[in-house]
Structure formats: structure tokens, C-alpha cells
């Protein structure tokens, strides 16, 4: 009774409600709903032909995997161990669900009814140029969707390098392994999978 201003302030606050303008300020989060645009989405669909910042595609070899309409052979730069590791990681994330860890086309999704992809160890794919793989990842192939939005060009080249490594592993002989590593291999039962 003796503190009306304070009580009043509290009461009026109750009427106004707990407003947290700072918690939700005028900044929009990706895909947040907003009445501003007709589709009520804060994110705008990309305009056709838009080039991501810092990715001006001047290098045909690197960005398209083809030169003058011909699929390239070889890699835009020498393959490093670091790149192979990256390729293994990305392969296991994106490709192994269908193609399987070893690339024979027995991924978990295939086991659930997805049409089986061809094995990477077919002669056709062993002979295919690197540009072919780049093309398939970028544009899709058959029932396979494009992975262009999920896998960056550099990652695509890393995955291709790893596919080549997988293919090589299938046909490799013990002589191909450096002498220092042979004992280590025997120890692990000669298994040379993805891990």
C-alpha cells in the first residue's frame, strides 16, 4: 500500500508482458519465418548463376573436371596424404551410405532398398578418367542426386583421390607396400578397409 509506484510498475509490466526485444532483435536467423517476404522465409533462394564469394571459377580443371568438353585425367595438384585423409573422411560421410565403406556398393541405404550403385572396383570405373567422378559428384548420375551443394570442389578432388586409393587397394600386392609397414599389415589380418 505504501509503495504504489513500485507495485504499479510491476503491474503495468504484467500488462505489457515479458518482452525480450534484445533476445529477438531485428536480425534474422537462416530460414527463420518472417512476414517481410512473400514466401515468409528469411533466406532468399539463390539466383541462377550466382557465384559464391571467393569462388570465382576461373580454373576449369579444378571447378568442372573437364577441359574443352573433355573429362580430365589426373588431379589439379599432386595428391597429399593430408588430402587422402580428408577424402576418406568425406567419403565415409557422404558416399559410404550407398557405395559402402569399401566402395563395392553395399551401403546401409542400399541394404534398405535403395538401388545398388556399381562397384568402384569394376574395370569400367578403374579406367574412367578422374573428371568422370568429378562430374558424377557435381551433377549426379542415374538415381544419384547431385552433391554439389554438400561437397565443395576441393573435397570432391579429395574424395576422388580416396576412391583411387580404394581401387588400388583391391588390386595391390604385398610388394607394393613399403617394407616397414608389412609387419603392421599382417598384424591387422591384412584388412585394408576404409578405416
Amino acid at each position, binding site marked *: 500500500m*505504501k*509503495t*504504489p*509506484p513500485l507495485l504499479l*510498475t510491476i503491474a*503495468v*509490466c504484467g500488462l*505489457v508482458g515479458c*518482452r525480450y526485444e534484445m533476445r529477438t532483435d531485428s536480425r534474422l536467423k537462416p530460414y527463420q519465418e518472417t512476414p517481410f517476404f512473400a514466401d515468409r522465409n528469411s533466406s532468399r533462394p539463390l539466383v541462377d548463376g550466382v557465384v559464391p564469394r571467393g569462388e570465382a571459377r576461373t580454373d576449369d580443371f579444378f571447378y568442372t573436371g573437364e577441359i574443352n568438353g573433355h573429362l580430365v585425367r589426373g588431379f589439379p595438384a599432386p595428391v597429399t596424404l593430408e588430402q587422402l585423409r580428408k577424402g576418406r573422411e568425406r567419403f565415409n560421410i557422404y558416399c559410404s551410405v550407398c557405395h559402402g565403406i569399401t566402395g563395392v556398393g553395399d551401403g546401409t541405404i542400399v541394404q534398405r532398398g535403395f538401388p545398388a550403385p556399381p562397384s568402384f572396383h569394376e574395370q569400367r570405373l578403374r579406367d574412367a578418367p578422374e573428371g568422370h567422378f568429378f562430374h558424377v559428384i557435381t551433377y549426379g548420375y542415374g538415381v544419384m542426386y547431385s552433391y554439389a551443394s554438400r561437397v565443395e570442389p576441393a573435397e570432391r578432388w579429395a574424395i576422388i583421390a580416396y576412391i583411387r586409393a580404394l581401387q588400388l587397394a583391391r588390386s595391390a600386392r604385398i610388394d607394393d607396400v613399403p617394407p616397414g609397414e608389412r609387419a603392421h599389415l599382417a598384424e591387422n589380418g591384412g584388412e585394408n578397409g576404409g578405416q
Partner: protein
Amino acid sequence: MIISEQTQAKEETRARAERDERPEPLVRPGETFRSVTDKIGGIVLAGRHPLGWWISFGIAFLLVMGLFYAIAVLLAIGVGIWGINIPVAWGFAITNFVWWIGIGHAGTLISAILLLLFQKWRNSINRLAEAMTLFAVACAAMFPLLHLGRPWAFFWLLPYPNGMELWPQFRSALVWDVFAVSTYFTVSVFFWYTGLVPDVATLRDRAKNRFSQVIFGIMALGWRGSANHWRNYESAYLLLAGLSTPLVLSVHSVVSFDFSTAIVPGWHSTIFPPYFVAGAVYSGFAMVLNIMIPLRKWYGLESVVTEKHLDNMGKVMLVTGLIVAYGYIFDMFTAWYSGDAAEQYSVVNRAIGPYAPVFWLLMLVNVVLPQSLWWPYVRKNPVPLFFAALSINLGMWLERFVIVVVSLHRDFVPSSWRMFIPTGWDWLTLFGSLGLFFALIFLFVRFLPMVSIFEVRELIAEEKEGAA
């Protein structure tokens, strides 16, 4: 002929000396325990009020409605409705805050410090002054909360366990302010209510209807006036006064730290704490007089609030007014002596800058006009004293305005200089807070004894003893 004239003169002198020797009574002779109880308690119990009460309360009530409207708009839209900007971010809200909290100081000063100094004349005016303190502090506390921008989150200012695991920044003068003002308000409530308990018990025992009996009965907490009660009461009351005395000095000092710990030219000064406290007492006494003079007339309380009270309060205002004037002079001296160009400019800017009329009006109403208090005529007559007090209240508000706005609107970097022009909402909030204050005062006068009855009884008992 000559001899007889001389004798006459001598006799007159002696008579005057005798009159001066015997202290003027604080309660007019003829008042008894019962008569003062009836006189003061009757105001509440009879429930009949003079026309002045109704008119004043009506005006105050309308202003409160205006305040509610201004606050509602403020909460809905935000502090942008005020004239504040960058650099004048504080504007009217902080001006009003400092002014109101200063007014609050007189209550505690009268109740506590004068009690400790055994100034018995305080007994007739302390209750109203304490109530005034409460309402002024409530009005004051409202402004920083509104100024927060998001008043509903005001509790973030307090330390409490929270999901952020965060504590207030205890090294900031603004957080000190939160503690000082809330402590001041709480202790003022304690002090006021403690003083009220024996009087509420009187009302309980004299109430004629069941409803009043129950309400006053609960408020009196079963006070019986037992010797035990009085012994503990006097001890605790004196201790409360002892605690309130440094508190009242600390509160306005802390308020002044809000300014003086900042580097704004015109603020960064060590004179601020004492000068703020003196200014607070100055305006507080003026406000007590502004309220007391009409009330004692309306309710016929001249016999308990005598001319001696008016005189004493006038003297206190004169002294504190001189301290404040000294503060103004010292401000200018420090600016000159510091050799700091920005500091010197702030003083010059006050006198001849865009807000110069405010400054000169301040000098007129806060320094020049109050000098009239040197004349006993002004101090002892209600009407001139009322206007002197009014002038001081206006002056102290202008002083806060000059400190807050005129210091902020021009600081170190000329590119950021801007003017502050109050909007209609600023004015409505200021006058609305005045309305709130007076509405609360009038309600208090209506529902609770405005003069401490048992302390007036003590005065009567003492005067009886003195006479015997």
C-alpha cells in the same frame, strides 16, 4: 521625562530579555494529552476534510492519471518518446530522480539527526516529513527504473542466483545507487512505521466503527503502551535514528558519485558529495514547508506546528542554501584552478551557453531570493515563507537540470554536441510524479495521523515539568 523614558526603555529591554530567556513553547499552552489526541486523531477518525483537501487531491489525482498514461506509452514505445539523445542520455529522468531523492532527505534528517541532537521541536513535524521521505523516494526510484528502457527487467540490478550465473558489477556507482536507494527506502519505511505504531494504537482505541478498529488494530500489532514496550521502543528508535543518520548522508553522496566518478566536465569534482547532501536538505526542508504550511492552516494545527517550527526550518534552509551557494562558487573556482580547458568551458557554457537563461534563473531563485530568510519576518510568517520554499524547490530542480543536461550537452568533442529539448512526455512525467507525490501525501493525511501524537504528548509532559 528623560529619566522616565530611560526607565521605560530599560524595562522594555528587560522584559524582552526575559521573554527571550524563556524558550518559546513548542506546543501552545492549554493543550492536554486528550486535546492533542482529539485534534490530531480526529482528522483521521472524523473523516471530514476541508475544501482545500478535495481540490488539491483532485488535481493531484488527475496528474497521477496523466503519469499512468505517460508510463503506459513509455512502456509500449520506449524511452524514445522523451527528448533524450546522445550525448544527453540522462535528460529529465535523472534530473527528476536526483531532485526527488534530495527532497526525501529532509524527512530522515528531521526524524533522525534532530532526534540525536535532542531538538525537541522536531516532534511535531517528523511524521509528515517521514511520510514525505517515503513518497519522495518512491517517486525518485520510479525514474531510474523507467529510464532503464526495459523496466520489467529491473530485478536484474539486484544480486540473485540466476541462470546467467552473473552478478551485478559491484564496482559501479550505478549499482551502489541501487543499494543506497533501496536501503534508504526500506529503512525509511521501518522508521516511519515504527514511529507510527503507538499512534495507530491510539486510533485503534478511539475508532468508533468495527472496520477502523480491525484495520488499525492489525496495524498496531497489539501495542499496549506497556513499560516494557516503551523501553525497547525508545532504545530501538534511537538506534534506528543512529543508523539513519549516516545512511542519509551516504545516499546522496552515492547519488553524487553517479556524476563525480564520470569524467564529464562539470561532474568530475570532489565537492559533489557534501554539496549534494546540503542541496538535498535544502530542497527537502522547502518541500516540508510547502506541504506543512497549507495543512496546518486547513486542519487548525497552529498550536502544535508553531511559528517556532517555521522559524527553525527557515534557519536550516538558510544555512544549507549558503552551503549550496558555496558549492556553486567552488565549482567555478575548481574549474579555473584546474587549468583544464574543457572544465573551464563547462562553467562558461553554463553562464553564456544555450541554456544560460536556466542558469541565471537558478541563481535567482536558489541563491538570491532565499537570502530573504535572513529577515525573521519572512521566517515567521507562513505566506512569505511558503513562497521562499517554493522558490527553493524550483531552484533545486533547475540545479539538477543544469548539472545533468548542461554538462552533458557539450563535452570534449564538439562534433558530438547536441541540444536537449524536453518533449510533452517529459513534462507529463515530471508533473505526473508531482501529482503522485501529493496524492500520496493527501491520502496519508486522510488515513493516518500526520503529526506524531505520542511525541507531542511528550512535549506537553516536558513543558508541564518545565513549568512546575
